[in-house]
Each structure stands twice: as structure tokens, then as C-alpha cells.
């Protein structure tokens, strides 16, 4: 695997190919499992189709009463989840290597810069195709298990459609990274563009005659194909547009890379450039900087910006859900009134939990994602902790008279603070949204639902810290990402597969329950806290005794 840059890069992606391929495959299979129970009678099918039509902003509600159609519909805007990997990988591909200084050596081999970049891009595309293959096969197997009417070709074309949209966002990240001095901003800007493009695509499903506008988004062309729906099929034109975009964007990125200074950015015209710092050397020291006073303060300073963006995303998502619920409730009331057998309500309850209030019921369905996202935030922070160990950044910190346990706990305390900030701000934003939209909701339950996510985030972080006692960054992040996907699968698919209570108890989401509807069960959440505390204590013990960066 070390015979070429292509093979070496592909080798670097091997864990991601398996992790993301299987993880995303499970995410796609999970709605197939749940829909089987929702479409057992014609009345239920009609109710589900009617319900889906109210959520058209999410995805085209085409044949939502079939396994393939429901899976396509349910994945909807969650395409962002799948695009995260190529976005991170492409921003790391050249800019990340420049950050580490490893590109200098690579460019000293007798290959042109363009050749180096092309081989790296080719490796990423190959990795995406491998992921697509895994996702396609899992989708096919899931379809067979739940009696879907699409075949292996449908599953594989679905994977191909995903691979192409991922390649487009990989191309955007590669292009953007030519203009940013570090890989972080490149990933951030591409992530923001991904969000914007998802919204742009949504517009034509909500506002009539705006197709022309949505065509500006690559997501639009991704959604033109619905291979899991044999009656709808694949848009060859859509796939070709995605392929063309991926090629053009990647080629532009490579072209700019081949012409700029290594370690520098593409020079922009004067007006959009940031002001330059003072040319004269500075000898002053920031003696009053609060973020330099302790490991805890430094850790807090380090995660301040990521926390800010995640908090903004959480608060906006939660507030948007509440406002969306208010708008949906009116329409759903009409559907429910015209459904004397209450099939639509059954469908909704099976998605969002048992509740008498329509607002709470709808929010229960929508809020199920928030704890998963908070745990994903914790996973990113665990990644930072293990990377600091692997890269030797703790070596000088540990040469100061700080007990090792204090270093670990200081870091964890900063993460805990960040999750509390995320929770509190999200709660405040939700409160404002409730007041503005007039949604009828038990505010105590809302507070418990949002603040109850914090122990879940800290649990996965503690497990990640514990695993970091033995594992390197990629393995540790892969392990806890897989754990998160497995928990998600157990809690959201397990009940439909009639898994035993003992199995369902393996997932922390079981203990989280449905607090928006039924409040937080203190006994259950105490279990999560206790397991997290034990994991953190063991992580501290291990870190105090382990060899650093060996």
C-alpha cells in the first residue's frame, strides 16, 4: 500500500471507509425497519402518506408509504451527516498536510504538484465509491429484510448518488482550502455552504415556482434520483451534473494548488483580504489573558469557537423545530380530524412517542435528533484530546507541576462547561421560540429534555477518554462514533425489531427516554451519570499511569 501516493492515501482512509460505510448504511436501514410497522394496513399507509406530505420541506414525499420511499423521505436533510466525512477529508487533504509540514517532504519527490493532488483526490473518490458500495449493499440487504421492492441495482445506485454528492462537497472543501490559511476554516465554510445549499433545495418544495432557485443547489440534483423507489428511478442528468460539479470543483482546487506557494493562500484582490498584522516584531506578553491561567481555562479557550458554532446550530435547530411544529400543528389537526380511526395519530405516536398533546408529540418526533447531535459534539472534543496526546502536545504541559489527573479533569471540565452552555442557550432559544410562536408545551418537560442531553454527551466523552488510554486518535474516534451509531440503532430500530429489554437497556437513549413527553426519569438519568462517572474515574486512573505518546 506504500507504492504510490494514491495507495498510501487510500490506506489512510481504510478505517473511515468501514466506519462511515457501515455507520451510514445503518442510518439508511433504520427508517426501513421502522416503516414496516407503520404500513401494515391500507389506512396506516394513507395516514403515513398524508403525514409525510406535511413534511415536504424535508424531502419529496413520494411513495412514503413504501419501504424505499419512506427511507428516501426520512433521510431527507440528513444528507448533511453523510457529507461531513468528505468535507473534513478534503479540507485536510492538502491544507491539513501543509499545517503539519508533511507536504514539503511529499512535494520533494519527483512528481508534479498536480500529480500529487490528483492522486490524493482519486484516493478520496475511490474511498467514497467503496463507502457507496457498502451503503448500497446494506440498503439492499435492509430492503430485503423489510420486504422492499427495490433490488441490488437500486441500492448501488443509491450509494452512487450519495458518493457523487459527497464528491461535490469534497471538491468545494478542496477549493475553499486554497483560500484559507488553516484547514478548520475551510471545513467550517464548506459546512456552512452545505447548510445553505440544503435550505436552497428546500425552497422549491415549500414555495411554488421556485425550481429555478433550487437548481442553484447541488442537493437539488442529488434529490432528482430516488433509486430506492423503482417507480421513480434515477435521473441520469442529475448524476451527470453532480459528476461534472465534482470534477470542475476538484480540478479548480488542484489548479490553484499547483500555482500558489506551499503554506500560503491564493492571493485575493485587496478588498476582501483581512487586515495585515504589524510588520515590526512584537515582544509584549499577554500577561492578563484569562484563558492562559490553567489547563481548564486553556481548554475552555480552545473549544470556545467550536462551542459557539455548535451552540448556534443547536439553538437555531431547536427554535426552528418549535416554530415548525406550530405551523404543522394546524394542518395536522385537519388530517387527524378526517381520520376517524386515528391511524395518522398512531403513525405519529410511533415516531415521536406516546403523548396526548399534538405539539409535544410532534416535537418528540423532531427532538429525537438533538441528543445524538450533542453526543457528536462530544465525539469531536474527544478527538481533540487524543490528537493532542498523539501529537505530543501534552509533553511540555506534563513537564509542569500539574498532576496528570488534573490535566485530564481540567480538559473534561471544559467540555462539561461547553455542553452546559450548549444546553442552557438551546433552552433559552427554545423558550423564546415558544413565547413567540405560542406552542403549547410543558416547559418543565422541555427543560428536562434539553438539559437531560448533557449527561449523554458527557457519557460518550468519558468513554472516549477511557478508550484514549489505549487507542490512538483514529481508532478512538472510530470506536466511539461506532458506539454512537450502534446506540442509535438499538434505540430507534431495536423496538421495531422486537429486541429484548436487556438489549435496549444497552443504549443510553433508553435511559434518556422521551422527556419532552413524560419528563426525565431521575433514576434512569442517574444510571447514565453513574456509568459516565465510572468511565471518567477509570480514564483518570489509566491516564495517570500510562506512557505518554509512545
Amino acid at each position, binding site marked *: 500500500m506504500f507504492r504510490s501516493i494514491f495507495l498510501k492515501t487510500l490506506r489512510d482512509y481504510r478505517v473511515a471507509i468501514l466506519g462511515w460505510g457501515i455507520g451510514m448504511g445503518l442510518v439508511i436501514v433504520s427508517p426501513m425497519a421502522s416503516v414496516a410497522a407503520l404500513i401494515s394496513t391500507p389506512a396506516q399507509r394513507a395516514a403515513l402518506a398524508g403525514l409525510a406530505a406535511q413534511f415536504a420541506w424535508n424531502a419529496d414525499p413520494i411513495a412514503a408509504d413504501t419501504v424505499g420511499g419512506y427511507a428516501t423521505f426520512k433521510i431527507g436533510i440528513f444528507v448533511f451527516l453523510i457529507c461531513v466525512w468528505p468535507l473534513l477529508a478534503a479540507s485536510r487533504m492538502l491544507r491539513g498536510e501543509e499545517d503539519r509540514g508533511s507536504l514539503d517532504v511529499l512535494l520533494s519527490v519527483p512528481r508534479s504538484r498536480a500529480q500529487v493532488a490528483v492522486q490524493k483526490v482519486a484516493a478520496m473518490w475511490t474511498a467514497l465509491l467503496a463507502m457507496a458500495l457498502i451503503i448500497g449493499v446494506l440498503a439492499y440487504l435492509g430492503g430485503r429484510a423489510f420486504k422492499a421492492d427495490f433490488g441490488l441495482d437500486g441500492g448501488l445506485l443509491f450509494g452512487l448518488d450519495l458518493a457523487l454528492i459527497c464528491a461535490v462537497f469534497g471538491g468545494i472543501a478542496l477549493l475553499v482550502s486554497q483560500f484559507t490559511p488553516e484547514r478548520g476554516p475551510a471545513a467550517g465554510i464548506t459546512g456552512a455552504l452545505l447548510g445553505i445549499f440544503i435550505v436552497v433545495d428546500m425552497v422549491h418544495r415549500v414555495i411554488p415556482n421556485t425550481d429555478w432557485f433550487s437548481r442553484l443547489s447541488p442537493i437539488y440534483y442529488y434529490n432528482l434520483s430516488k433509486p430506492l423507489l423503482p417507480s421513480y428511478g434515477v435521473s441520469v442528468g442529475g448524476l451527470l451534473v453532480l459528476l461534472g460539479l465534482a470534477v470542475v470543483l476538484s480540478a479548480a482546487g488542484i489548479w490553484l494548488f499547483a500555482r500558489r506557494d506551499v503554506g500560503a493562500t491564493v492571493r485575493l484582490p485587496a478588498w476582501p483580504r483581512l487586515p495585515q498584522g504589524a510588520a515590526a516584531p512584537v515582544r509584549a506578553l*499577554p*500577561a492578563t489573558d484569562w484563558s492562559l491561567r490553567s489547563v481548564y481555562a486553556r481548554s475552555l479557550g480552545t473549544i470556545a469557537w467550536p462551542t459557539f458554532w455548535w451552540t448556534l446550530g443547536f439553538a437555531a435547530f431547536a427554535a426552528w423545530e418549535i416554530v415548525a411544529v406550530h405551523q404543522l400543528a394546524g394542518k395536522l389537526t385537519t388530517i387527524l380530524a378526517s381520520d376517524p380511526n386515528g391511524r395518522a395519530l398512531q403513525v405519529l405516536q410511533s415516531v415521536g412517542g406516546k403523548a396526548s398533546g399534538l405539539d409535544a408529540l410532534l416535537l418528540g418526533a423532531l427532538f429525537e435528533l438533538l441528543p445524538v447531535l450533542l453526543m457528536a459534539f462530544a465525539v469531536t472534543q474527544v478527538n481533540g484530546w487524543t490528537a493532542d496526546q498523539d501529537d505530543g502536545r501534552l*509533553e511540555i504541559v506534563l513537564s*509542569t507541576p500539574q498532576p496528570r489527573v488534573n490535566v485530564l479533569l481540567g480538559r473534561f471540565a471544559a467540555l462539561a462547561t461547553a455542553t452546559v452552555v450548549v444546553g442552557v442557550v438551546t433552552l433559552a432559544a427554545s423558550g423564546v421560540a415558544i413565547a413567540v410562536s405560542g406552542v403549547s408545551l410543558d416547559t418543565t418537560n422541555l427543560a428536562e429534555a434539553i438539559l437531560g442531553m448533557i449527561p449523554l454527551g458527557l457519557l460518550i466523552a468519558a468513554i472516549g477518554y477511557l478508550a484514549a488510554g489505549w487507542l490512538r486518535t483514529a481508532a478512538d474516534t472510530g470506536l466511539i462514533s461506532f458506539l454512537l451509531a450502534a446506540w442509535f440503532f438499538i434505540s430507534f430500530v431495536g423496538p421495531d425489531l422486537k429486541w429484548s429489554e436487556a438489549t435496549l437497556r444497552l443504549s443510553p437513549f433508553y435511559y434518556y427516554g422521551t422527556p419532552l413527553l413524560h419528563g426525565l426519569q431521575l433514576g434512569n438519568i442517574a444510571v447514565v451519570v453513574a456509568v459516565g462517572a465510572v468511565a471518567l474515574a477509570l480514564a483518570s486512573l489509566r491516564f495517570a499511569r500510562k506512557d*505518554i505518546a509512545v
Partner: protein
Amino acid sequence: MTAIIEVKSLSKSYGGKRGIVDVSFEVAEGEVFGFLGPNGAGKTTTIRILMALIRADKGMARIAGRDCWDDSVAIKRLIGYVPGEPALDPNLTGGQILEYFAHLRGGVDQGYLKGLVERFELDTSRKFRQYSTGNKRKVVLIQAFMHRPRVLILDEPTSGLDPLNQLEFDNLVKEARDEGRTVFLSSHVLSEVEKTCTRVGIIREGTLVRIGDIADLKDIKRYEITIHFARPVPAEMFARLEGVADVEQLEDGSAVRLAMQGSADAVIKAAAQYPVVSLTSYEPSLEDIFLRYYESDGSAPKEAARV
């Protein structure tokens, strides 16, 4: 003088791979001790055990009478440390890094810290990632010296420094020595150790092979002279000269390679009796010295030799 660093029968392996084997030495307080060895010899492993970053499989390591692992926090109050491969938060400026470590060490004399920044002419406003290799090294050196530690443990500290800053570093080491502080300095550059250290230990393949005063290093500080003549010369003539340790006849006898110790005066005068075509002098690397002195007889010493 009392020993401030005591290492006895220290061993460490990484899985099945050799780290260090049965290493023992002492460093007296106020001493500048050089720890010499080629790459991969075990210098960094020894230092990382002293710093409690890794744990020895067996043996004892103590600083100021305390066990390096069990009392690591107390020991680190006394130490300034430069790692072999320094890695710091790339998003912090040099100034922020220095202030951060000043706080973690319980505060430092800001006047002294500013003085060090001036001496090394460090621009504290740039992010660590933007520094050149030499400037990164300056930041790491300043953080090691800024709290005037009783013991300085420096792993190849001048790697990447330009000659002017190397001079500044030498001055700092001399100041530390004059103030009675101890410096433990690892290097694979013989001349660097020779400049700054009073005593040295030499480690090779994980084993301490030699320890003693710097003056006693002369016997291993050999160099070579190769002389080409216009016609064959009697090589045995050079063997008897002062400073010649070994003679090798080359080509058809019209060239000699001499292993030298000390002055070359006698050799130059003897060579001048014949028509000299060329004369080249070569100072062997430490690696060459090791190869010659510890492998030429086919048996590397297993225990440290006192000179």
C-alpha cells in the same frame, strides 16, 4: 557535591523493542552533564523516564532525592524541560504559550521572562504554527529557562537554532552553571557537548558505554588525515609519530590514511619530506567514533567504563 540526578539499573523496552538497558549514572548538583549518543541510542527514553512521561520497566530514577515517577509533581517544580520533538498548540502565539506555561508553573518573574524574549529576539505575536523551526525552538527554550529551574533537562536543545542563538543558548547554560543550577543536556553533536558540559555520559544501543569528565573524552576524539603523495612512501614512518593512533596504506603505497589524536604537527613535518599531492583532514561523526571504538574489536562494552 551531592548527586541531584540518580539513575540506577534503569531499563525500558517498548513491546519487544529495546529502549534502554541497565543504565546507571549520577549527576552532581551544579554540574553541566552531557548525554551523548547517536540517534536511537536511548537518550530520549532516559530523559522521558526522568520526566515521568514514561515508566521504567525496572531500576530507579531519582531527582533531588525523590522518585521520578512517584513524586513527579514535586520534582517538576524544580525542572525546566525541552523535549526532543517539541509540539505546542499551533493556534497560540509565542507570547500566549509562554504566559500559559508561566501560569502552570505557578508564576514567573515577568522581568526575567521579558529579558529572555529580548535576548532571543522572539516575535511573541506570531502563532506557533507560523514560526520557523528556529523560532519554535526559541519558544521552547524560553519556557524551559523562564522560571529559573534548579534542574534543566534538555533533549537536543539547539537543534534548528542558528549560530547566534546557539551562542545565546550557551550563555544561558553558563549562567545556569554559575548560579549553581544543574543542566542535563542530551546531544549527538560532540562539539556542542564539548563547549558546554563538564562531564559526559555516552549511550549506545540503549547501554551506557562510557561516563567521565569532558577532558577525558580526548581519547575518543579522533580525526583522520589522508595524504596523497606523488610516489610511494614508507607508511611505517608515520606510525611512530606523536599523535598517530593508526596508519593505513592506500592505493599502491602513494597514500596513507592516519587516525589522529591530538596535534598534527609531527605528521605535517614528516609528510613535507615527500612530494605531497593533496592532504585532507576529516573529523569523524560521533557515529563513526562509536563504530570504530566499540565495534572494531567485535565486542561492545556491556557496562559503563569509568575514565
